[in-house]
C-alpha cells in the first residue's frame, strides 16, 4: 500500500481560525510537518495551544464557527484538502486516517454492544457484511488485548482501560495508515497508561501504522515518539527526532518545558515558566514566546521562520 519513498503525510501551512464575538481565534496558524510511514510523531503543548484543533483540522471535523480553514494536507501524495466533504468522508476519514478522540473511553455509545460499535466503521467504509466485520473485530481485539467475548458487552460493563482499548480497536478496524490520538491516556491510571502505551507500540510494530499522538504529558509521550513537534500558541515551534530532542531541545520554550517535568530518576530541580501563553485572539506580531523568553533580543519582534539545523527545525532567531 505504501510506496517506500513517499511521505505518508505532508502538511503545508494549515490554518484553522474560529469566529468568536471577540474576533478570530487563531487556534492553528500555519502548521507544517511531515510524517513517514510507520513512524510516530508526538505533538506536545500546553492546554489552549491549539493541539486538539490541529487534530480536528486534519480530519476536517469542524465546528460551525470556522472563520478560516486553509492549507494543504497531503495524505500519501494526494491533497485531501481539495476534496469535497462527501469525498473526504468516503475516502479519507477512517480509511486514510482515523481519530481516537479525547476521553475516547467516554465517547462510546452506551446502548450499543462494543463489538457492534467497532464493526460499524468496517461495515460502512469497507462494505463488509456483519459477519465479516465481526471477524475483523475479533482480529483487532486481539491486537489491542481485549478478550473477544467482551464484544457482547455494553460499554458500562468495561473498565476505563478496556474501553480505551475498544476505542483504539475501532480506529484500527478499517486499517488506516495513520491514526490520530488525542490525549489517549490522560484520564487513565498509571498502570493502565503503561498498558495502553505498550499496546500502541505493539500495533506500530505489527501493523505498521503511523501515529500522531497529541498530548501534554511529556514523560508518557516519550514512550512512543519517533519524532517530536512542540506547539505553542497555534504554531509549531520545534520539530525533531526524539533521540535529538529529549536530551537537548533547541527552542527556549521547549527547553523550559522540558525543565518543568518532574523526574523520578534524577534529582534535578524542576523549573516553571513564568507568565502565560498569549491570547490567540490577538497574538503578538513577532515570536509568540518572546514575552516569556529569557533570551529575547531585538530580532524577536519579527516573526522567525523555521530554521533547519542537522535535520531538526526550530522557529527561533537564536538558531538563525
Amino acid at each position, binding site marked *: 500500500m505504501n510506496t517506500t519513498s513517499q511521505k505518508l503525510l505532508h502538511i503545508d501551512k494549515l490554518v484553522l481560525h474560529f469566529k468568536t464575538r471577540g474576533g478570530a481565534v487563531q487556534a492553528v496558524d500555519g502548521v507544517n510537518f511531515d510524517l513517514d510511514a510507520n513512524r*510516530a510523531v508526538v505533538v506536545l503543548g*500546553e*492546554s489552549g495551544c491549539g493541539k486538539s484543533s490541529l487534530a480536528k483540522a486534519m480530519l476536517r471535523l469542524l465546528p460551525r464557527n470556522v472563520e478560516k480553514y486553509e492549507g494543504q494536507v497531503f495524505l500519501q501524495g494526494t491533497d485531501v484538502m481539495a476534496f469535497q466533504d462527501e469525498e473526504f468522508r468516503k475516502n479519507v476519514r477512517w480509511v486514510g486516517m482515523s481519530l481516537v478522540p479525547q476521553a475516547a473511553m467516554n465517547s462510546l455509545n452506551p446502548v450499543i454492544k462494543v463489538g457492534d460499535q467497532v464493526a460499524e466503521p468496517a461495515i460502512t467504509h469497507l462494505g463488509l457484511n456483519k459477519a465479516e466485520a465481526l471477524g475483523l473485530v475479533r482480529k483487532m481485539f486481539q491486537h489491542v488485548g481485549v478478550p473477544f467475548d467482551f464484544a457482547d458487552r455494553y460499554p458500562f460493563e468495561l*473498565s476505563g*482501560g478496556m474501553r480505551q482499548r475498544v476505542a483504539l480497536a475501532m480506529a484500527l478496524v478499517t486499517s488506516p495508515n495513520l491514526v490520530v490520538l488525542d490525549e489517549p491516556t490522560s484520564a487513565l*491510571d*498509571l*498502570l*493502565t*497508561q*503503561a*498498558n495502553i*502505551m*505498550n499496546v500502541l*507500540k*505493539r500495533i506500530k510494530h505489527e501493523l505498521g501504522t503511523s501515529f500522531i499522538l497529541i498530548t*501534554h504529558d*511529556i*514523560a*508518557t*509521550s*516519550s*514512550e*512512543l*515518539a*519517533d519524532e517530536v513537534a512542540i506547539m505553542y500558541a497555534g504554531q509549531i515551534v520545534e520539530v525533531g*527526532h*526524539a*533521540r535529538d*530532542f*529529549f*536530551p537537548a531541545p533547541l527552542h527556549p520554550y521547549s527547553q*523550559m*518545558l*522540558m525543565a*518543568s*517535568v*518532574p*523526574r*523520578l*530518576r*534524577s534529582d534535578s*530541580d*524542576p*523549573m*516553571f*515558566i513564568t507568565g*502565560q501563553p498569549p491570547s490567540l485572539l490577538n497574538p503578538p506580531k513577532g515570536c509568540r514566546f518572546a514575552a516569556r523568553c529569557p533570551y529575547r533580543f531585538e530580532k524577536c519582534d519579527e516573526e522567525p521562520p523555521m530554521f533547519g539545523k542537522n535535520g531538526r527545525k526550530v522557529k527561533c532567531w537564536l538558531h538563525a
Partner: protein
Amino acid sequence: MITDLREVIMNVQTDNEAQPLLSIKDLHVWYELRRFGFGHAGYVKAVDGVSFDLAEGETVAVVGESGCGKSSLMKTILGLNIPTSGEVVFDNENLSELKGDGLRHYRFKIGYVQQDPYGALPPFMTVQKILEEPLIISGMKNKEERLARIHKAMSEVKLHPVEDYLEKFPHMLSGGQQQRIVIARAMLREPKLIVADEPVSMLDASVRVEILKLMRALQESHGLSVIYITHDLSTVKYFSARIFVMYAGNLIEKADTRRLLENPLHPYTHALLAATSDPDARNADTYKEVPPGEPPSLVNPPKGCRFHPRCAKAIAGLCDEKFPPDFEPEPNHFVACWLYQDASS
C-alpha cells in the same frame, strides 16, 4: 465509647514525647450496597483497616490508583464521611465523638485543596465572595477583619495585587490562578492540616511545578502538616517526606520517600515505579512490564493479600490464604507482603 476514651487517655499518658497531630487506628470505611433501594447487598470496603500517625509539620503522600480508596480515606479525615469502625484522632479530638458544632469546628482545622480548581470554585461568585464565605460561616463578624484575612491569604499564594483579583469570577482566571484561590481558601482558617487531593493533576506542566513549590513554601513557613494524595510518583519527592502506597483499601507500604523510591519492596510498588516514565527517547524501544489484570472489586476483595492474583511472586498457599500483616524489613519501612516475613525481626 467509654473504653475508647480510656484508650485515648492511656495513649496520651504513655506517649509523653510528641503526640501525633493525626492518629488513625484500624480505620474502616464501608459503603452499604442496597438492592432495589432497600435490601442489603453487601458493602464496598473502600478503606479496610488503615492505621497511621502524622506528626505536626509532617508531609505525607498517599499514592494509589483510582478506586483504591484514597479519596474515601481523605474524606473521612476531613470529617465528611462517617467511619464504619476504627478511630480518627485529630488534635486530641476523636472524630466519631463529634457532633454538630464540634464537627464544624473540627472541619475548620483542616484545609482542603480540591483536584479540579474550576469545579471547586462556584462560577457565579466573585473571588472575594468565595473567600469571604468560609469566614462568615466560621463566625468572623467584622467585615474589615475578614478582608484583612483574605488579603493575607491571597498574598501568601502570591496573587498580587490582591485588588485586581477580588472582583473577578473564576472563569476569568487561568488554571494556575484558580488553583491559587483554592489554596488560599484552604489556608483562610489557618488550619494545622491541609489535605490536597491531586492538586496539580489538572494543570499544565509548566504551572504544575509552580503550584507544588508554592505549597511547599506554605508548608514550611506555617509548619503545616500536609496529606498529599496523588497517583503521580514523580512529583512526590518534591513535596513529601513519607509515602504511603495504597491498594484496594489497604496501605501496603509505608516508608520515607527517598527510601521507598530507591528500595521499593512491595511488588505493587515496584510495578508503579516501573510504569512511571521519565522523558527519554529510549523508552520507545522497550515494552513496560505491567502486572496483568485490574484492581479487584472492593465488594468482594480476594482472600489473602489483595494483590496476589496479579502478583508474579505470589506464594501459593500463603498469599492467597492469609492477609499479610505489616512487616518491617528495615527500620521505619513497613510493607504488607509475605515475601518479607523472614526479613523482619
